[in-house]
Each structure stands twice: as structure tokens, then as C-alpha cells.
């Protein structure tokens, strides 16, 4: 029984720790994504469905040569009226070749923004690691560079670099360097003032998309549907945009849950074994109880209680162990550089991890004690007594 108890404790504990870790990384990723790209993105105008067939038949109809949003300010104003919306920022997006002190990259992504609007829908302020946003605000030729990109091109705060989007190179200066932690962003993204981006990308009007912040990001799908209906523009949610990564995290979470559950399962098997042996050892006692008027239920309850005791003690200790281990893990210094970067294990504190672990243990332990308890209850006192007496 002690072994089974230890198994339950460790199983429940490890379940909680692994969930806290995978959940922590997922939350961290989501927070970063929301803080960088916002909850919603409003893009191309939707064509009336009547023309959908035409659009599919020939792409050269020329109805929306550039896609994007023709009158972004008007749409942004409309979107800001939604209750869950914290802000809407106009973004002009285009590709450009970037040349710095020690290298160049033909595939930089230029984001033309209005700084204040952008700050309202992202965590850009918190992401600046070197330099100053006030410098960017004052300098028309200022730029914000991702940390990875700046490092690769040998650029520091104050350094000049060139951007070329096909209309000849133009000169900019690094006002600040930011780090979102998401490698795919920090490696390519250059923020310019919207006005500068318009002349660099030769797009005097319109916008590529609107970045929208939400009070409650979990409501994104519902809000997206509404905004799409009202504005007539396609709206994508963060869940849609990051579907691949979110799926990866979910798969990771589920697979670690399954893996760790096997510990609980093995503990359950051990417990089943112990209880089954106990029933065999105690047939005499069971027969005595049955002969003195104890019902099958009374007998089953004795063995179920044993299971329940192990379950309660194991789950309680396991939860404590899990919480302690989670805390210890969150203190572990570790440098992670991959799809995102962090300097320690990120953990998520969620009661659901504890509930799920307890539920798993409950199912396993109840199943493990149910069968022996049933077997004990079905013993016929006469058979036992005759078997022992002869």
C-alpha cells in the first residue's frame, strides 16, 4: 500500500509540474503574441459573395489591386466603438532589403505605424530593450529594430542603415531595439513611422491591416465575427493566426499528461494487486463479518475505504509536492532561445492542473479498488468456512 501511495503522490505531483510547465510556455507564447501582433487583425475588404465565382475564375478582375484597407482611419474609428476593443492601430506592411554596418538582408519586413496607436494595442513599450521610444517619437527617420536583426547587421542604437523597397535606398537611424522573445519577429521586423513607410513603400493611402487589441482576448472569435459583419473586412483572430503553434502546445500538454498518467496507472495496478492479495488473505475475516450480519456492501466498503484513504492521502500529498516542484522549477535559471526566449522556466499556476490530476488519480484508484472490493463482497461465507474448516 505504501508503494501505491508513493506512486500516486509522484504521479499526481509530476502531472501537476509538467502541466504547469507546458501550460506556462503556452501562456508565455500567447502573451507574447498578443503583446506583439494584437488579438485581432483586420485585413482585406470582403468581396460580396455574388462575385465569389468571378473572383475564383479570374484573378485579373482588378477590383482590389492592392488588397488591404482603403480607408483605414474610418474603419479604425468604427472598430474602436466595440465594447471589448481597447484600441485599433493602422499598419502598413511591406518588404524591403535592409543594409547595415556588417551585413544585409533582402527580406526585412517594414511595419509603418502610428506609435501611440501601436502602443495601445501591443506591449511594444515593454519590449524595448535598448534605446528610447521618445527618441523614435521625435525623429522622423527613426526606426525600431528587432534584437536579432540588429545583432545580425551589427547595428546599435543611433546607427544608420539603408532600406530599399525597389525605389532606391533610403536612410534611417536606429532609435531603439526591441525584443518580443519570438524569434520569427525579432529577426525580420522593422518599425517605421507610417508616413515614412508610405513613401518608402510608395503607398500614399490605405493600410495593410489594422491591429486590434481586446480586453478579453478569449472572446476574439465572437468579436471577429461581429467586426467582420459590420466593417465588411476580413478579420482574423490570434487563435487562427497562431493555430499551428497553439496546436503544438496543446499536443505537448496532452502528450505529457498521458505520459505522466502512466505513473498513476502503474500505482493503480500495484494497488489493485495489493488489494486483491488482501482479499485473499482476509477471506476468513470476511466470512466472520458476513456471518454476523454484515452485508456485501459493508464488506465492499471496507476495501473501497482502503482505496479512498490512499487516494485522499496520495492526492493531497501529490498536490503539495506538485505545487512545491512547480515553484522550484519556476526558480530554475535556464536560457531558452527558440521560437521564443525566456530566462527561466515559465510556469502556469492553474487550479485545473490539480483538478485534472486528482480526477485522473480518482478514476484509477477507484477502478483499482472496485474490482477487489467486488470480489470480496461476492464471497459466500459458507464456502469460506467449509474450505477453512475441512
Amino acid at each position, binding site marked *: 500500500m505504501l508503494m501505491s501511495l508513493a506512486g500516486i503522490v509522484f504521479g499526481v505531483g509530476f502531472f501537476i509540474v509538467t502541466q504547469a510547465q507546458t501550460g506556462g510556455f503556452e501562456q508565455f507564447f500567447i502573451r507574447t503574441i498578443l503583446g506583439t501582433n494584437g488579438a485581432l487583425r483586420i485585413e482585406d475588404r470582403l468581396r460580396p459573395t455574388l462575385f465569389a465565382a468571378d473572383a475564383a475564375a479570374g484573378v485579373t478582375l482588378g477590383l482590389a489591386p492592392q488588397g488591404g484597407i482603403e480607408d483605414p482611419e474610418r474603419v479604425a474609428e468604427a472598430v474602436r466603438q466595440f465594447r471589448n476593443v481597447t484600441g485599433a492601430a493602422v499598419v502598413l506592411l511591406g518588404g524591403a532589403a535592409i543594409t547595415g554596418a556588417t551585413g544585409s538582408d533582402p527580406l526585412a519586413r517594414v511595419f509603418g505605424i502610428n506609435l501611440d496607436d501601436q502602443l495601445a494595442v501591443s506591449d511594444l513599450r515593454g519590449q524595448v530593450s535598448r534605446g528610447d521610444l521618445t527618441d523614435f517619437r521625435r525623429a522622423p527617420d527613426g526606426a525600431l529594430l528587432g534584437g536579432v536583426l540588429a545583432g545580425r547587421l551589427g547595428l546599435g542604437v543611433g546607427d544608420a542603415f539603408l532600406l530599399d523597397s525597389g525605389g532606391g535606398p533610403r536612410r534611417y537611424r536606429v532609435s531603439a531595439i526591441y525584443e518580443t522573445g519570438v524569434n520569427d519577429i525579432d529577426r525580420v521586423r522593422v518599425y517605421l513611422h507610417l508616413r515614412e513607410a508610405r513613401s518608402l513603400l510608395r503607398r500614399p493611402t490605405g493600410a495593410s491591416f489594422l491591429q486590434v487589441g481586446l480586453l478579453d482576448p478569449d472572446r476574439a472569435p465572437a468579436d471577429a465575427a461581429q467586426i467582420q459583419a459590420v466593417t465588411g473586412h476580413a478579420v482574423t483572430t490570434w487563435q487562427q493566426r497562431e493555430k499551428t503553434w497553439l496546436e503544438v502546445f496543446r499536443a505537448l500538454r496532452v502528450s505529457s499528461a498521458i505520459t505522466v498518467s502512466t505513473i498513476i496507472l502503474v500505482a493503480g495496478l500495484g494497488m489493485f494487486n495489493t488489494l486483491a492479495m488482501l482479499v485473499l488473505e482476509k477471506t*476468513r*475475516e470476511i*466470512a*466472520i*463479518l*458476513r*456471518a*454476523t*450480519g*454484515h*452485508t*456485501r456492501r*459493508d464488506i465492499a466498503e471496507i476495501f473501497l475505504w482502503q482505496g479512498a484513504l490512499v487516494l485522499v492521502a496520495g492526492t493531497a500529498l501529490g498536490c503539495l509536492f506538485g505545487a512545491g516542484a512547480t515553484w522550484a522549477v519556476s526558480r530554475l535559471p535556464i536560457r531558452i532561445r527558440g521560437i521564443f526566449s525566456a530566462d527561466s522556466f515559465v510556469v502556469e499556476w492553474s487550479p485545473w492542473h490539480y483538478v485534472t490530476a486528482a480526477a485522473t488519480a480518482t478514476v484509477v484508484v477507484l477502478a483499482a479498488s472496485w474490482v477487489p472490493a467486488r470480489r470480496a463482497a461476492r464471497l*459466500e*461465507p*459458507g*464456502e469460506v*468456512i*467449509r474450505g*477453512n*474448516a475441512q
Partner: protein
Amino acid sequence: MTSPTALADRSAVLRCENLHRHLGASEARAHVLRGVSFAARRGEVCAIVGPSGCGKSTLLYQLGLLDRPDGGEIWLDGAALGGADDEARTAARGRHLGFVFQFHYLLLEFSALENVMLPMRKLGRLTPAAMEARARELLAAVGLADKAARPAAHLSGGEQQRVAVARALANEPAVILADEPTGNLDAANSEAVFALLCRLAREHRQAVVMVTHNPELAARCDVTRPMRDGRFV
């Protein structure tokens, strides 16, 4: 003696009719009880005697609702229980029957007192204090007042048997079934236990059915039923 209640008392509280029981499987299968009919009356001590292996214990397990008959029926307090569901048989066992096994069956980890209280706790008719008082009384009656707190494992065979007798009496059952209750006892204790059973039958109008190999005790019972090869003769 002529009052209606007294007459009713004379009727059989436990009765069986044409009981059959086979034991063992395939070749080892034996017809152990071959149509046994029997009645136990309140206030009467009945001795079942017979050679070893003739089916006395098997009959007692049937009467004690510990084993099911292959044929025939058993009535306890007017209710047919031979083929009744487990719940009814268990309840009847707890309420109306007290059993002393041939090989004393005690919970060895528990004290003598706790063993005697076992059926009372299940029945729940008395308060815990009353249960303990009654259990002590019963242990005193079988001469074990000073060993009430002793774990059953630390009692001698004869002492265990007397605890088992005390336990069988715990719920004041209508019927006491005893399988060689004096088998392991010395002359003095065997006399004490036998006298106790007889006194209970008289004073509390309980029915006592006792298997014994002791012809002297059998002779002192109200009724003696000799058995041979699974039948009464």
C-alpha cells in the same frame, strides 16, 4: 402453558424441509445432505449427533443461512429464506441467528470485547455504552470477564471458543446454532457453556441447536436427533 403465546412459542422458529446439498465438483461431487427435514423450537435445546462426515456441519451452515441449498426450503420466523436474495438472508442472519463455528472464528487482531460487540455494532439496536456493558456481561457469563481487553490471538483455543459463544448470544438471537461448542473445552468449561446455553433457552425462550460428539451432553438435551449419511435416522 395453555396461553396462546405459549402455544405459539412451541411452534418452530426455524424449520427446513427436504434439504439437499451436493458438495465438490465432478468426480469428487458428493450428495452430503439427502433430504433433511428439521425444526427448532423456542425454549428447546436440540442435539444433533452422528459420526464424523455425516453432514452435521453442512446442515448447520444451511440452517445458519451461510450456504445455499440445492433443493428444499428453509423458514426462519415464517419467512422462506432458502432461495431468498442475499440481502434478506444477511439481515435475518444478523437479527435472528447466532452461530458458534466448529473452529472458533474470531477476528484475531481485535479484542475479545470487540469480537463480541461485532454483531451488535452491525445491528445498531443499542447505544455504544449499552453494547459494551452487554458484551462484558456475556464474557463474564462464559468466565472471561478478566480477558475482555485481550486480543483474540492471545487467547487459548478454549477461551476463543467461549468468546465465540458470547458473540453468538450478542444480539439475543431467536436461534443459536452451535457446531461442537464444547469440543475444545475442559470438563468444567464445557459444563459452563452447556449450562449457559440451556439456561438461555429456558429463560429467553431461545432455540438452541447444537452439534455434539459428547453423548453425555446430548442426553441432557431436550431433543436428540441422530444423523447418518446425510439423513436423520
